[in-house]
């Protein structure tokens, strides 16, 4: 028996409050493609991806029709290329990046993730070669995404790797200077990177993953914001319940879609990522949720507390709705992809320092933040080191996706279009951390990593 109220509520969530499935991401293992000949390796990678994910886009579109809910992105993540690339030269890695692009074009997907390296404890020659060619790989391809894991709670922080990232990011910005330095939007620096994340740019198929898996990322900031608005002047315990119930409903849809996609693609279900992922669309903003909770503006004192409560309630509501939870799971706070965050930065209420504090209590980290094009490499390294240590010490994932927009200054903005949105260029503290970063070596793992 169908309940009229339930039906109308669901329809309203989808049509008016921007509820959607943000992504179905198929993780594909490339271990069986390994070859010492890079051309042979590329051929095997192309064949495996295009065969395994052949029906991904059409299946996503069919499920979208069946349930009447938009499935915004269909994507693929692969085994970190620094692992399967092995002995490849930098030019060999570049060839692999082009192969991934070719596979993405054939499949009609909008991103392919996994041009990645795991260097939290040290760097292999392969990882070094991959990182050295990242600016070219990201500027010569359109849909290939990359991530570098530079730290973990177990391994500590690889400062030598962080020291390479500032120059890599700056060069990526320079090579795509005619496109607002967009290459930087496809590169994430991680601590404690999850191995089953469906969201870009950080998605890859981890080393313990099966041959292939379906991972789904849900969304719905607009639905949560509306539920909070309807709840009126209730206290925080009641508000947490409202958020939990809403997150449960959103996540159940994600689980439904994940099960159906797994069945139709004959691929095991991996995880649902319990995320609140904003888009630049009006109303689909995490900042608006925080303001709906009672802040005059996102970025005001009290923002970290509100975000901590929101993030926790989303997880509590979502976890019961899904059989397996993974990925990043939490509220995202990318600046350029969230209309409310952009407005908060523009009115001077939200600073980089406040964003850093917020990342201690939610998912991901300093995400899609544009900084002046002349920001020194060492300052970028310092921003990364700070953010990464928040993740390492708190045993959580943190990440940095910074865009030092070439030729632009604080107060200007850069337009990326689509889901990547518009980024106001934020002023930053340029006092130098060069000597600290330049010491190199590793920051030891924190004492609470010793749990055995």
């Amino acid at each position, binding site marked *: 028996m169908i309940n009229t109220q339930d039906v109308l509520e669901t329809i309203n969530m989808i049509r008016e409050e921007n509820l959607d499935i943000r992504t179905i991401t198929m993780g594909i293992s490339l271990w069986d493609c390994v070859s010492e000949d890079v051309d042979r390796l590329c051929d095997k990678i192309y064949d495996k991806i295009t065969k395994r994910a052949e029906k991904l886009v059409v299946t996503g579109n069919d499920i979208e029709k*069946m349930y009447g809910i938009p499935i915004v992105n269909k994507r693929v993540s692969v085994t970190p290329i620094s692992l399967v690339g092995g002995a490849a030269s930098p030019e060999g890695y570049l060839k692999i990046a082009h192969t991934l692009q070719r596979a993405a074009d054939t499949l009609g997907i909008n991103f392919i993730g996994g041009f990645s390296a795991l260097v939290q404890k040290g760097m292999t020659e392969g990882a070094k070669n991959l990182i050295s060619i990242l600016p070219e790989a990201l500027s010569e391809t359109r849909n290939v995404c990359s991530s570098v894991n530079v730290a973990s709670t177990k391994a500590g922080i690889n400062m030598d790797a962080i020291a390479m990232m500032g120059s890599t990011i700056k060069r990526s910005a320079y090579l795509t200077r005619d496109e607002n330095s967009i290459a930087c939007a496809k590169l994430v620096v991680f601590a404690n990177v999850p191995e089953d994340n469906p969201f870009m740019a950080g998605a890859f198929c981890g080393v313990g993953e099966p041959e292939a898996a379906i991972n789904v990322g849900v969304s719905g900031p607009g639905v949560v914001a509306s539920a909070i608005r309807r709840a009126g002047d209730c206290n925080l315990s009641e508000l947490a319940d409202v958020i939990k119930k809403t997150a449960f409903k959103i996540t159940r849809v994600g689980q439904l879609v994940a099960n159906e996609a797994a069945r139709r693609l004959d691929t095991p279900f991996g995880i649902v990522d319990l995320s609140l992922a904003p888009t630049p669309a009006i109303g689909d903003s995490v900042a608006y949720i925080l303001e709906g909770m009672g802040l005059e503006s996102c970025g005001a004192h009290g923002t970290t507390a509100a975000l901590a409560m929101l993030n926790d309630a989303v997880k509590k509501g979502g976890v019961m709705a899904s059989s397996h939870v993974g990925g990043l799971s939490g509220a995202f706070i990318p600046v350029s992809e969230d209309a409310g965050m952009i407005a908060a930065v523009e009115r001077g209420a939200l600073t980089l320092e406040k964003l850093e504090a917020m990342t201690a209590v939610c998912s991901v980290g300093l995400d899609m933040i544009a900084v002046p094009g002349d920001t020194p490499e060492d300052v970028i390294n310092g921003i990364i080191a700070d953010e990464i240590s928040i993740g390492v010490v708190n045993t959580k994932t943190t990440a940095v996706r910074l865009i030092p927009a070439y030729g632009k200054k604080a107060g200007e903005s850069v337009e990326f279009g689509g889901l990547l949105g518009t980024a106001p260029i934020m002023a930053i503290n340029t006092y130098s951390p060069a000597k600290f970063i330049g010491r190199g070596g590793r920051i030891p793992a924190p004492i609470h990593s010793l749990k055995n």
Partner: protein
Amino acid sequence: MKAVITVTGKDTVGIIADVSAVCAKYRANILEITQSVLSEYFAMIMLADIDALDVEFADFADALKVLGEGKGLMIHAMHEDIFNTMHHI
């Protein structure tokens, strides 16, 4: 397998007849209809058995959508599971 068809918009003559005609054409069997009219605003929810559908479900949903667009109505056909999973534990 059952589909939930929702129709919303300004009330006019023959909405149920038009939607039913599309259901009959593609062999969707109507099981239940709930409808209400509130200050000229029409809302109808229809439950239909689509096991015997003679086209793909996506085409059936598109046919209803096109019908709605021609009459200034919003018509959505969705698999019932989305409502069941979202609202029931």
